[in-house]
């Protein structure tokens, strides 16, 4: 399953990222932040309206905001 559909608050392990679906700079930025295969993340906050965009992730001691579209490119399993 992909990260955007994952429950808030639960730990997820990233098992793959569809880098080709992301813009080059965004892929670079995500990798630099450590959002990559093997990382453990948890959704801690979601945005306001309808699509509940953006999403705030917990990664280690960092909180990272991404869009749902990015989360959709990230495949996860329960950690």
């Amino acid at each position, binding site marked *: 399953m992909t990260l955007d559909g994952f429950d808030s608050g639960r730990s997820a392990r990233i098992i793959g990222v569809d880098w080709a679906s992301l*813009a080059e*700079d965004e892929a670079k930025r995500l990798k630099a*932040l450590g959002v990559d295969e093997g990382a453990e993340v948890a959704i801690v906050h979601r945005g306001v309206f309808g699509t509940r965009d953006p999403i705030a992730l917990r990664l280690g001691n*960092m909180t990272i905001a991404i869009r749902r579209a*990015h989360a959709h490119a990230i495949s996860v399993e329960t950690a």
Partner: protein
Amino acid sequence: MSRKHTAALVGNPNSGKSALFNALTGARQKIANYAGVTVERKAGRMTLPSGEPVELLDLPGSYSFDAASPDEAVTRDVVKGTFEGEAVPDVLVLVLDAANLEQHLVFAQEVLELGRPTVVALNMVDLAERDGLTLDPEALSEALGVPVIPTVAVRRRGINELAAAIAEAETHADEEAHRRWHLTLPERRLSAKHMAKGATLSKSTRHTIENGVDRILLNPWLGPVILFGLLFVIFQAVFAWATPFADALEGGVGVLTEGVTGALAPSLFRDFLTEGVLAGVGSVVVFLPQIIILFAFILLMEASGYMARAAFLMDRLMASVGLSGKSFIPLLSSFACAIPGIMATRSIADPKDRLTTILIAPLMTCSARLPVYAVIIAAVIPQTTVGPGIGLQGLVLFALYIAGIVGAIIVALVLRRTVTKGAASGFIMELPRYQLPRIKDLAIGLWQRAWVFLRRAGTIIFVATIALWVLLSFPKAEPGESQLDASFAGSVADAIHPVLEPIGFNREMSLALVPAMAAREVAVSALATTYAVDAEDEDLAAEGVTSQIAALWSLPTALAFLAWFVFAPQCLSTIAVARRETNGWKWPVVMVAYLFALAWLAAGATYWIAVGLGL
């Protein structure tokens, strides 16, 4: 050694680099641009324990040498010594967030791989302790092969030790260093994990403050309400709190004017001093308190970590007009001044996003418009309240800000469907940890911004004011003729007035718009100068521009003037910055054309509706 010594701070964004920079250099800082690029170059002077001075550079925060933004490219090039005109720093001070070691050690390895003399500042150890983390600097030093100094920049903890380590490091380049690293990104991550683990003595599972605070501040419903409330408080404060200080400054200018009038015999030179210099520059400088209050809030939001949360909350809204939450910070800065705002768009990676943000930045009500708004509002809007603690004047000011924002939304929507058409942009951003801002850091930031404003007042605005005074004072009027009608400025105003008359502008207003091209706030000094020169009665001249406007302008005319300034691109510096940031004249021309068209339409609509309503 006779050569000037240099050191550079390098590290991830949000590692507390700037606070450390302030702690090491104090207020001895110089802000400029790197040659050829539009990235801010922050340099300062620090003193080694030996008393020797070192130039310290605060390099832009960076996640990787594989740069995703122009800022990161500067950091990479300077550190690697490939940036033309910039000497490679003698010592690198690698700043790591103690509570974020595993993340920050990834970039750290890239830096250490260079084999430059390096000192690690293990920064914000107090926040790590707050999060229940006890670290072992010695173990980390062993793993990295360079000295590690625990610091708390905001409390000056470890600052002297760091300075000593910098002095020491200069003589010890680690020639072996680059042979120890050379890893791929996944390898670096793994190694970072091991090093972080090895340097961690104990780690409690205590919940960080962030989770609790963010649960409220990022709450889907409460968060936006809090943000909107905060913005409202900021704008009320800008208008209310500044008044006593502005009054004091105004009084000071009055005393000076009287002094000059008393000391000198009536002459052209005395008129030049009182009607030109003091009336003009004085009426702009009195708005310094408002600018400082606005910047104080912006700096507070940045330093506390709330600004990124505001971007998070605004992202959805910005996405609906084709932008991202990242545009929120440049646009919010533009409320103080469009110039730092446009320069802050450098952090937006997507070029179309960035261009759109640059084009709409002038629609955010900058502090230069405050003087114009403040004078007109004080003159024509009654000082009543419309609810507990809500003044009508503040409410009108708020409405003007909203008008600019609504205009920006519409323009952004149009731009994203036409000239900057393209795929919707993304939003990836680290939300830094909350921190108590330190007064000294705030003070340094405020001083730098106030200085920029005063320098503008002392140069562009001064020159424009003097030029206007000359245009207004010559040729001299015949007896019985108004000085304004006879002057050069009168002729210029006559030329543009037919275009502005339909939207309710009187001749003084048309006249004030000419020098206001230099900077919006000059409109106020221009009006002051115009009325001071034109007044035959000394007392009337002294009464100030506010009472003149109250007496001479109709309400629809005053409202039309306010509406004009919501949109009009009356700032040469903004146009110049837009040219520099977009590398050409095309986009500044587009910007100026659409803004003038909007200004004319908005002022016209305001005037016609107000007249129609019988105001």
